């Protein structure tokens, strides 16, 4: 099939915007899910040093759809099978947005809002690609809330130690600015009509997309009928954030919602289990704590994961070992 490309947009954006279900993961040059082939010379790379581009066979025309723009009419060949009948519920598109209300909520985490020029529908768990001023290319940021006809969704950004842009943002703050965004994106989404009990294993800023899932669930009293088991891990106690929001989730259905906190680096004083801000606190990585607490608990649950790669791999191993099929485990791999 043939689609047109707007000036400056990537091949992935052009395809998704026009309803072509191209394979992708992060949309930002990290995960390499969108590897495809194009005749050499017909596309130009936006970011040749992208982590996901390290193993490209460029002599065979391999490129990342999310990091390539056309330089002339081109054909692309996508590996694997694509079902063209599968279209996203909300087609992504380009928007201008005003970034505002940048707030540091933990030593390495801040929240911000984007006021979009139009109203956008998205599914809980999805993300937007955001091109912040001074940053090369787009980065994925998950919405932390759920709104219909959204105009000002909220996001989380993680501090990248040594990252020039990130350090500047966290030390000097973010001035109100206009940014380019593309979305909504992401396949790790929540559909309440599936009517499943949920297990959420999340680390650090990886909790962002899960907060959107929980926001929608609480709004429709989902946890009055279904259970939630959530473990939220960070490195040290000072790194926790969103605890007030998690209390709201727990208080929406205390009998069905179980939330535990985990710290991986800091030694806990006293017993191996204590309380922090009203939640049970444990020592260990998220998947280790979940394994201790959730033995036999995950069967028939739908899992949402978010966090750094090692945490995702550990959690995935735990859930697969518990017998969950891969179709019941959802996550985006940004890292």
């Amino acid at each position, binding site marked *: 099939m043939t689609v047109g490309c707007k000036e400056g947009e990537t091949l992935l954006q052009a395809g998704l915007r026009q309803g072509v279900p191209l394979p992708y993961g992060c949309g930002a040059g990290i995960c390499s899910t969108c590897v495809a082939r194009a*005749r050499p010379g017909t596309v130009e790379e936006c970011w040749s040093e992208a982590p996901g581009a390290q193993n490209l066979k460029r002599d065979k025309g391999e490129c990342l759809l999310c990091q390539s723009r056309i330089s002339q009419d081109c054909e692309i060949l996508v590996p694997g099978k694509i079902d063209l009948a599968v279209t996203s519920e909300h087609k992504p598109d380009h928007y201008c947005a005003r970034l505002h209300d940048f707030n540091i909520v933990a030593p390495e985490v801040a929240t911000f809002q984007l006021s979009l020029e139009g109203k956008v529908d998205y599914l809980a768990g999805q993300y937007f690609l955001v091109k912040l001023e001074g940053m090369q290319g787009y980065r994925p940021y998950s919405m932390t809330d759920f709104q219909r006809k959204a105009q000002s969704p909220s996001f989380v950004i993680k501090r990248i130690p040594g990252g020039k842009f990130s350090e500047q943002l966290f030390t000097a703050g973010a001035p109100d600015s206009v940014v380019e965004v593309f979305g909504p994106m992401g396949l790790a989404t929540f559909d309440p009509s599936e009517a499943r009990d949920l297990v959420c294993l999340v680390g650090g800023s990886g909790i962002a997309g899960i907060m959107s899932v929980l926001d929608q669930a609480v709004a429709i009293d989902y946890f009055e009928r279904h259970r939630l088991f959530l473990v939220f891990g960070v490195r040290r106690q000072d790194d926790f954030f969103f605890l007030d929001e998690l209390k709201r989730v727990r208080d929406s259905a205390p009998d069905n919602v179980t939330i535990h906190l985990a710290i991986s680096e800091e030694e806990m004083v006293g017993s191996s289990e204590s309380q922090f801000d009203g939640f049970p606190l444990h020592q260990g990585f998220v998947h280790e704590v979940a394994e201790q607490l959730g033995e036999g608990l995950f069967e028939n649950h739908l899992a949402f994961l978010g966090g750094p790669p090692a945490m995702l791999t550990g959690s995935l191993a735990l859930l697969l070992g518990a017998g969950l099929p891969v179709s019941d485990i959802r996550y985006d791999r940004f890292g």
Partner: protein
Amino acid sequence: MSDSLENSWQVVCAATDVDDGELKRFQVGEIAVLVVCVGEQFRVIPPFCPHMAEPLHESGICRAGMLTCSKHLWQWDLLTGKEQGPAERPLLFYESEVRDGEVLVRVEEELTYEFDEEDDDDFEW
């Protein structure tokens, strides 16, 4: 077993080197392989995911007789190599057996996955 066939078998590791559900990378001469233990059986496979050549000693997870690549959740039955769920290609196996507590493999040539599309001549540059 003929002498020539016998001679083509090589020791990869001790059977005790790889625990049940574990996946370890070894060298057989110049060829890298992964050894997987499923219960009391072993399989020896190429070290890359058949999907996008992800190094499986980093991304592979063995649980309940299945191998899952955590990158895109392709999955295989470890005893048969048959693809499961979203996976579109089977796993390749080197011929292997356990003898006197050692995992032996017969490597006549390096097994690789064909990542190029076979039927699109327009893209043969």
